[in-house]
């Protein structure tokens, strides 16, 4: 029984990690290739969730809603890039932080203005909304299995694009030395725009996938943004492979920490105190992990700049 529970918790950790990966993939490329700190990346995750909620309500089907939300998230990302972010690439990081923070505030208020402050509900197709029984009494929601499958598929696709195509080669080159790539005659601005659009779409996709399990509400992107930054710092800025491994690591450490810390502490403390301290310690684990990684490998596990 405990073994099954541990296995289920590993599944939970994987699922959480894969969502983090979808968000962090775009963030790490934007930061790595363009040296641009985009705090508004979490807002794109929120926008993805709102778009899928709106389109699902409009069409009556989650699949159709998702099919419409993805291009819309892409267009929205490109629009932000052209209107705002493009003018910030040559500024220093402080200006970028300030401007993109402004975008967060603006967009959080904008969604509240359009859709209201109350959380929205997104329903999933009936076939995917149930739970499968793993062992006696241990159920696992089908939708979370779908998230795991889709996350792995996107990870594989990104790996192939980044490592096996010409575009991917340029992206990798841009991440390690953007000025040199530009000097060799590559239209770096266009490359930036493509990377940014895809990154925004992936974040939007992550938002769309979690919309049925989490409430869609203003500010939902603010918390994941911090975790996404932890992921890219651990993984090495600009590295898709690093983001993938770091995201899974964070997902597993966070979930298993919450599960095991109270159990382990129960050996030392009384149950109520163990439960409370365990749960207080668990959320710190990922930051302790980050500090340890930075101590031993200051540029992350898979640094793209040499």
């Amino acid at each position, binding site marked *: *029984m*405990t073994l*099954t*529970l541990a296995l*289920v*918790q590993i599944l*939970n*950790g994987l*699922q*959480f990690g894969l969502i983090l990966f979808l968000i962090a993939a775009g963030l790490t490329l934007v930061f790595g290739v363009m040296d641009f700190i985009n705090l508004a990346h979490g807002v794109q995750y929120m926008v993805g969730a709102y778009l899928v909620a709106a389109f699902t309500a409009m069409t009556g089907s989650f699949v159709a809603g998702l099919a419409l939300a993805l291009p819309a998230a892409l267009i929205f990302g490109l629009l932000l890039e052209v209107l705002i972010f493009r003018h910030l690439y040559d500024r220093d990081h402080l200006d970028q932080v300030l401007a993109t923070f402004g975008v967060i505030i603006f967009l959080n208020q904008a969604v*509240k203005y359009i859709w209201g*402050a*109350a*959380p*929205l*509900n997104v*329903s999933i197709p009936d076939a995917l*909304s*149930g*739970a499968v*029984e793993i062992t006696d*009494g*241990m*159920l*696992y*929601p089908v*939708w*979370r299995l779908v998230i795991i499958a889709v996350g792995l598929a996107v990870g594989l696709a990104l790996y192939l694009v980044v490592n096996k195509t010409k575009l991917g080669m340029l992206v990798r080159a841009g991440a390690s030395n953007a000025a040199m790539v530009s000097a060799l005659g590559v239209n770096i601005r266009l490359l930036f725009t493509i990377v940014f659009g895809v990154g925004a779409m992936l974040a939007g996709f992550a938002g769309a996938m979690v919309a*049925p*399990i*989490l*409430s869609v*509400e203003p*500010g*939902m992107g603010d*918390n994941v943004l911090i975790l996404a930054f932890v992921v890219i710092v651990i993984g090495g800025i600009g590295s898709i492979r690093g983001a993938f491994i770091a995201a899974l690591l964070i997902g597993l450490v966070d*979930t298993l920490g*919450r*599960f095991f810390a109270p159990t382990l502490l129960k050996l030392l403390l009384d*149950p*109520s105190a163990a*439960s*409370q301290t365990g*749960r*207080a310690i668990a*959320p710190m684990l990922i930051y302790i992990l980050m500090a340890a990684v930075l101590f031993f490998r200051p540029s992350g596990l898979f640094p793209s700049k040499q």
Partner: protein
Amino acid sequence: MKQSFKLAGLAALMMSVSAIPAMAQEKIKVGVIVSLSGAGAVLGQQARDGFNLAVKDLGGKMGGKDVEVIVVDDELKPDVAVTKVKGLLERDKVDFVVGPIFSNILGAIHKPVTENKTFLISPNAGPSSYAGKECNPYFYVTSYQNDQIHQILGNVAQKRGYKKIYLMTPNYQAGKDFVAGVKMDFKGEILEESFIPLGTLDFQAELSKIASMKPDAVLTFMPGGMGVNLVKQYKQAGLLDRIPFLSTFTVDESTLPAQQDAAIGMFGGSNWAPTLDTPQNKKFVAEYEKAYNSVPATYAFQSYDAAMLINSAVVAVKGDLSDKAKVAAAMKKADFPSIRGGFKFSNNGYPVQDFFLTKVAKRADGKFQTEIVEKVFSNYGDRYAKDCAAQ
């Protein structure tokens, strides 16, 4: 010469400005301070709308005087709330302050308002801190004392003969109050007191643990967006058919539009539900739904009652608010037809009323609401009132 003209003009202007408040006091001024942005925005909107509806029902007048309602947003930030409430007291010179929704905001504004000898009526927050020794003749609550709602769950769990239960709550003061409230009447085994970091949105790890522990019931206090997520995920994990879900401030009309079908069959503790059978309530629910196109939650009705309470006091003193002791005496009588039917104040300004177990249901028109299952406590006052010196 020119300079002195200017000065004279300025002086005239100042005189006219200072003359305005004196004239404005011909009206009854009520400041409403609730959370209209941030995580609690929906609750604040309900409270504001409920209050405005009551003023409309009164024809915009109390005791023959026009009523002016000034609504401000506390942004769910105690420091902002203090600034805003000082604006209400010093600039607008309000006679009554209605608010807030959240206990931590109440902690910030209670002192400035009551020290200013202005009446403060809370349409929701009812912490123990002002119910006992610190009770105050300028402070009234039209909701409940917070512990009472949590106590309902423990009482029901005990009565239904549950042997082992699982408690889940955010890790902050109100969560600890929840655990204490449940333990008052529940004497069985508590498998786990799960304190979750405030702001957690994914409960899957917790739900897996519940599934493996197989408790007789899950008791939880999970307000706002956290509750919306928990309810959806509880259903998706297939637990709803297996383990009863009893909650406080987790499934109500403010969260049901987002939880929808996932919440059907979940239990809650409350002092009211839209189905409560009193003529005042039938009228209130119908009017509210017509005016705001949503089903009212407790926040709306408690705020409506707050307006009616103020009206009863203003009428009793015939619109003359100068003698504060008289107004306080009139307030304490609670001489108004509360939407919930029977209602009176304990000596500490907190209500004595009935409490119910509620259950979520879908109505014929496709909207969702809580419905009363059974009465749990009758004419029930809080346990802190005995420490309050006022009689």
